[in-house]
């Protein structure tokens, strides 16, 4: 259990840093979506299914969609 949780936290950390470093904004948004998904799994493992549901549907689906629509309207690459 502790191994799974620490692996997930490590993956979350790596994807959060990747979201900061990517120059391609679509990739950055997908990495941020990874953070939300792993956070949802962690909430579920920590016995908070209510929060996990909200995190998965809002953080991973809706926020990603809103960001991608906004990127489509503006520029894809960071300068």
């Amino acid at each position, binding site marked *: 259990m502790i191994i799974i949780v620490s692996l997930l936290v490590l993956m979350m950390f790596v994807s959060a840093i990747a979201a900061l470093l990517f120059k391609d904004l679509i990739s950055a948004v997908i990495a941020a979506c990874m953070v939300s998904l792993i956070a949802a799994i962690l909430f579920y493992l920590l016995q908070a*299914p*209510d929060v996990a*549901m*909200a995190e998965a*549907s*809002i953080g991973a*689906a*809706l926020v990603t*969609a*809103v960001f991608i*629509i*906004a990127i489509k309207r503006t520029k894809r690459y960071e300068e």
Partner: protein
Amino acid sequence: MKKIIVIVLLSIIALGIFASLQQIPFGKSKSKVGKYYLQNSKEETGASNVVTSVVVGYRGFDTLGEITVLFLATIGLGAVLATFKKKENGQPEKASLILTTGCRFLFPLILLFGSYIFIFGHLSPGGGFQGGAVIASAFLLIYLGCRGKRVNKVGSSVLESLGGLVFIVLGLVGLTLGGHYYLSNFLPKGEYNTLFSAGIIPLIYIAIGLKVGSELSGIIDLMMEETR
């Protein structure tokens, strides 16, 4: 100079947070109110999901504030995006066959799942906010898969207003009939752990689910609208 001021301000804030967190011993439950909820929520609200009994039972007034914040966010987005002109007679590009077929197959299932989440909010994990978000993601799938299809704006705004109205009216009726606080229960509690139990909690969660679902899909609709 600016950087030094920022660093000083941040360290003052960090010191404040550290000092207030130091009072709480790590890993120990010192909260008395949490224990109270766990012990008494079954008798007092009749909901078998304790989280639900806190969100719309004990802390119902805070939930009203949350809903108001979401409502204001939607209104603000609408006001900002309304200044752009709509693109006329633009034919949207078609999605691929796999996406179209998948969205036609999955859309009713996701809608059903979202409604299940908020109707059974007092029995199983989930509730109005989660169910509403799942419903909004179903509409997002429709916007991606079946281009050109749009939500009926009149219907969604009627649903949204109806949800808010039901919440406020139920709260005020509870204030006058049930007890001395907002959203107090005035309906029979029913049998514990069945669908028709927990008094007004399922009704409130259905209202919140409809309101949040229509608001979030309204945000998606505003963002997806082709503008120039």
